[in-house]
């Protein structure tokens, strides 16, 4: 039997974020119809791109203007779409936005939800995620009429598959939230920095950066690499950088293509946040630092000497 799969597309400045394509690739399976759910964006604009990844239906959801950013209203709208089109599995990104949206949908539907997953077998309803501070991989059997999956950004390589998509309109303008109102939204649209969890390249600093000022060197380098800057807990606790930059157990969990660790020793808790990175390059003066034996490339040197050189050599790219 044909299964209807819903995919919540995350947009940034009106464009589809790259990480959606890996998620669509993961959701694609035999005998499925893929419904891309687009909230408050023009489906016509994103149609061609979605078609190139196998989407066959695009549900354009419109919400009342003052409710667009309200996660409760968004959740309600998506629940209506799920019911309207008999959707039995929903995929969304395990980003900051997804962490505030997907559990709301699951809770209201009393449906299963696995966040931050990196493999889904839709035939058997088996899903893989990490547990115990990233030390174990758990295979979870999800049960129920509707299953919801929060997909770890960058975990799946996008593969194209062409299709033709039909646009369906869903009017959610009457939906409201009485008990939760949005006073102000953190404006991601004006933020120049690439989100840590979605960056392809992360350059992170630890104790070896010595002070907050030296992190500007990392920022410069990140800019050249089109990446983001991260930090270890030591650097955050020392007050050199804000907590939002922390990678690790009690910070962000990231899987970039490349993770460059500068002056980071590599505690168990730090690894919990970055061990699924594609390539790890460690730069550390201390050759006995844990990270030096658990990386792909290591440099025995002071990161403060290497990174400025790296910036120079990235210069004209």
């Amino acid at each position, binding site marked *: 039997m044909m299964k209807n799969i819903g995919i919540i597309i995350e947009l940034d400045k009106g464009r589809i974020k790259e990480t959606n394509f890996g998620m669509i690739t993961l959701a694609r399976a035999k005998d499925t119809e893929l419904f891309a759910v687009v909230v408050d964006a023009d489906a016509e604009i994103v149609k061609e791109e979605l078609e190139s990844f196998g989407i066959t239906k695009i549900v354009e959801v419109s919400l009342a203007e003052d409710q667009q950013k309200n996660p409760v209203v968004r959740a309600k709208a998506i629940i209506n779409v799920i019911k309207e089109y008999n959707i039995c599995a929903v995929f969304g990104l395990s*980003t*900051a936005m997804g*962490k505030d949206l997907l*559990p709301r949908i*699951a*809770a209201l539907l*009393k*449906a299963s*939800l696995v966040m*931050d997953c990196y493999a889904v077998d839709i035939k058997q309803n*088996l899903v893989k995620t990490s*547990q*115990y*501070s990233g030390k*174990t*991989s*758990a*295979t*979870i059997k999800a*049960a*129920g009429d509707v299953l919801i999956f929060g997909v770890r950004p960058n975990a799946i390589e996008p593969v194209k598959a062409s299709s033709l998509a039909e646009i369906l309109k869903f009017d959610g303008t009457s939906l409201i939230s009485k*008990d*939760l109102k*949005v*006073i102000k*939204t*953190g*404006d*991601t649209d004006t933020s120049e920095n690439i989100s*840590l969890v979605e960056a*392809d*390249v992360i350059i992170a600093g630890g104790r070896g950066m010595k002070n907050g000022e030296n992190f500007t060197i990392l920022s410069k380098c990140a800019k050249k690499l*089109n990446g983001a800057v991260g930090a270890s807990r030591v650097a955050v606790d020392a007050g050199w950088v804000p*907590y*939002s*930059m922390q990678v690790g*157990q*009690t*910070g*962000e969990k990231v899987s970039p*293509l*490349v993770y460059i660790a500068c002056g980071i020793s590599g*505690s*168990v*808790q730090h690894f919990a946040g970055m*061990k*699924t990175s594609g390539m790890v*390059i460690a730069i550390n003066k201390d050759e006995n630092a844990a990270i030096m*034996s658990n990386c*792909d*490339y*290591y*440099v*025995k*040197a002071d990161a403060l000497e*290497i990174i400025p*050189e*790296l910036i120079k*050599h*990235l210069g004209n790219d």
Partner: protein
Amino acid sequence: MQIYVCVKHVPDSAANITIVEKNHIDENLTFLLNPYDEHAVTEAVRIKDSLPDAEIIVVCLGKDDAQKTLRSALAMGADRGVLIESNKNHDSIETAQALKTVIEQDGNPGLIFTGRESIDAEGMQTMFRIGALLDFPVATNVVKLDIEAGRAVVDSALSGGIANTYEMSLPCVIGAGRGLNTPRYPTFPDVVKSKKKSIKKIVFSDLKIESLAAGMNIVELEPLLQEREPKEIKGDAGEVAKKIVRILKEEAKVI
């Protein structure tokens, strides 16, 4: 006002995890109060400082050993504890049902706290399920909380140091994030005092939780190893930089 704080007894993040019986871990290791829940307890105590009539009740679903985690929360300033005893591991659907049932039986919540996630199961959803069952609004990863004129104004953190500000009616559910406060670690007198505080025990099976079609069962646990074979990049700073650029370009293909 009664403030309920839902806490979890979790393995120390630095502990080595050994998998037994395919889908369990060897629990012969150090367990402690989930780090995010420390922020939840601390925030409840901070609110109580300005509302002296408030009572803080910590609730935990876990094995008998989880009393230690309740004691930690009591030492941090909570008034009393409730242990929902169960020898099984429960998914967040059952956990939320149990917590909701016990909170409703126990009192009249004005605020409910959880941590934004537990560091063992990393499910990130129990707070939303409690909220949905009680029809209370919910915010997670809360890094700033103000209670004023019968409402809660919260900053719910996104990535990159930015946050959404939500206003919620009370009662509401708050998933505490790390930026919310600096946990108050108990002094020796706090610990002594906490020993006199009560912990009520309730058996999970007595709650008669409704069994739902939905559920998340762990069928297998495997060590998550990332086998890497470190290769040294040698040379002076300039040579190293050149080699890194080449690796980024040719091998990682990110530039």
